[in-house]
């Protein structure tokens, strides 16, 4: 006798504990096995791209803070670079160093959240997540010291940064680097060496190299699949060519690799910060020629950075006014998500959550 079975459609989200915001995932399951996955996006659509056309270049910086709200500095960085390209503004040396330090600190903070919530998606009860909150707090304290804001920093300006680093910033940062190194070692022991964590993540959600490239994935998701692609080296911007650092890559492209790539990247970021702190020059922190609003000649510009989640790009078109005529965001979370179905189908329901967690999405950036 054969028993008849029927696939069941399960709706995860938009209100669900582990969809990292208002993401909705419609899974078709055969028992516990996922046979189809469909994403429904747009629950957090705010129309940022349209809004930005009504504002000035400088006002739009605050919008970029709120895209990927876990990495405001990197967003600022990408956007002001696009504006500088468009308007032809030079950036003083010191400002470049400050920007790199901030972007790398932000990468650490963002990866900490990614790793902590990922562990929680795998079913851990929040212990490591809380440790990571504790350490991220130190990064946020540094941000607060520099610009008065912790999450939505709004720190960078076309031509530099909004204010100079306070004198106590560099000593605090020097204390932070070894402390963070020790914590990262601890996480490797606590999480990456955990047997249950290993069997939950190894061989799960494999994203093959070719598919990763075809899907346009970037950031840790792409590098975990074994592609050595990092804009900081492959399309060097700002002053990244002056620093010595490695690009960690994975081999299999499973969830474990994505986790390990993030962990290694934190170490590399610390290396960059160390060198930047050593070399940072004095001088002006903002181009003295830029005060208040920025006018750009008609034209277009695209600038991108290697954000914590992947390639974050801003495409701006100017009609000669004080604000952009068109404002387009290439958000890494959104494009990394497109391969979700291929990664999920064939695995269990519990794996679907782990895979989603390993992509590290922030809904503010997926829906713009």
């Amino acid at each position, binding site marked *: 006798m054969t028993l008849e079975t029927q696939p069941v459609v399960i709706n995860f989200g938009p209100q669900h504990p582990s969809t990292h915001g208002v993401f909705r995932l419609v899974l078709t399951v055969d028992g516990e096995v996922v046979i189809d996955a469909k994403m429904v996006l747009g629950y957090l659509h705010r129309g940022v791209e349209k809004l930005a056309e009504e504002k000035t270049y400088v006002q739009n910086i605050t919008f970029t803070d709120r895209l990927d709200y876990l990495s405001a500095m990197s967003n600022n960085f990408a956007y002001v670079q696009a504006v500088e390209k468009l308007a032809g503004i030079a950036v003083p040396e010191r400002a470049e160093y400050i920007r790199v330090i901030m972007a790398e600190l932000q990468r650490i903070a963002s990866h900490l959240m990614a790793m902590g919530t990922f562990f929680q998606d795998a079913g*851990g009860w929040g212990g490591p997540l809380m440790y990571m909150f504790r350490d991220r707090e130190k990064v946020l304290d540094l941000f607060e010291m520099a610009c008065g804001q912790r999450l939505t920093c709004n720190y960078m300006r076309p031509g530099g940064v909004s204010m100079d680093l306070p004198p106590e910033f560099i000593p605090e940062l020097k204390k932070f680097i070894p402390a963070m190194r020790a914590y990262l070692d601890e996480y490797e022991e606590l999480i990456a060496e*955990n047997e249950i964590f290993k069997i939950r993540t190894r061989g799960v959600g494999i994203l093959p190299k070719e598919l990763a490239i075809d899907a346009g994935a970037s950031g840790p998701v792409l590098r975990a699949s074994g592609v050595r692609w990092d804009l900081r080296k492959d399309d060097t911007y700002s002053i990244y060519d002056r620093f010595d650092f490695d690009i960690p890559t994975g081999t299999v492209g499973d969830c474990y690799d994505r986790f390990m790539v993030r962990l290694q990247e934190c170490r590399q970021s610390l290396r960059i910060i160390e060198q930047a702190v050593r070399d940072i020059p004095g001088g002006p922190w903002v181009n003295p020629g830029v005060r208040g609003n920025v006018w750009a000649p008609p034209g277009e510009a695209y600038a991108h950075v290697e954000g914590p989640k992947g390639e974050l790009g801003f495409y701006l078109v100017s009609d000669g006014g004080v604000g952009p005529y068109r404002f387009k965001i290439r958000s890494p979370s959104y494009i990394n998500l497109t391969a979700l179905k291929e990664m999920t189908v064939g695995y269990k329901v519990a794996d679907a959550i782990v895979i989603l967690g390993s992509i590290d999405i922030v809904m503010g950036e997926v829906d713009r």
Partner: protein
Amino acid sequence: MTVLDYLYDLSNLVQAFANWLSTFAPGWVVYWVVGLIAVATTLLFAVNNTLAMNYIERKVIAHFQVRYGPNRAGPYGLLQPVADAVKILLKEPIIPAVADRPVFLLAPIAAFVPAIMPWAVIPFTPQMMVADLNVGVLYVFAMGSLATIPIFMAGWSSRNKFALLGAMRAVAQMVSYEVPLVLSIVGVVISAGTLSLRGIVEAQAVPYVIPQFLGFLVFFVAGLGELNRSPLDILEAESEIVAGYHTEYSGFMFILYYIAEYTHLWAYSAFITTFFLAGWRGPLLPPYVWFVLKMLFVAFLLIWLRATMPRLRIDQLLSLAWKFLLPVALVNVFVTAVGVFIFG
């Protein structure tokens, strides 16, 4: 008898009361009154642990996670469980329109009753127990098995996909873990030569955790599966299926599940104490104090696990039960039987 004797074993107190009562009351009155006292105190101890364990668990996990835990309601947040209980009791119990009403309403009660039944045979001291059944071990596991059915009732009658998934997992998990759980205790039974829980404790000159280490290991892990505790808590895996089988329950019905869950946990601590940690035995302190201390220690181990471990997936969980725990339990039974046959 001095005051210290009464305190050393609280059942002496009941005995004295019974003696006094029998001076003027007929025998059956004494029997019923003493019986009711025993049942009431045991039940209070079993069920009120929910409040205590709730507080302990939150506080301990908080400290694992570099937090403070509840510290607002009352001194050290001690009244937090009370506040939570009152809050949940005031909630409206919502029954989904499509739910299978009779089964939906019956399930929490059916979950609650088997959770408190095993307490009848747990020996806090040689005298402090409601009944010393000569088939105590069998009774305990029979009651444990009953816990599966209400979970499936809840998941099925809710007509909720998350609840159904949880119930489906529950059946697969609890049926699988029942087998190594029962087998793991066979070694203890062979060594002690009795099924009575009091007899098992009395047989432990050395706590069985040492000679029966394999059995202890299997019992501990399989018990986690039976209890649905982390890292084997897949049927209420909140990151996947929200709250599992009790997703649709609210108000008082939810409380019944909550109490059942913690009573199971507390009973499991009591079983480990009885079977493997030599129950009430220990120097100086009164026996029941030893018993509760050992239970608290086991409960702490459970909380510790919960604070550190991620969750297994269903297929990994089942293969752990059938491919690892079951063979180990069988080996343990074999070795114990041969050992007892040769050495007496």
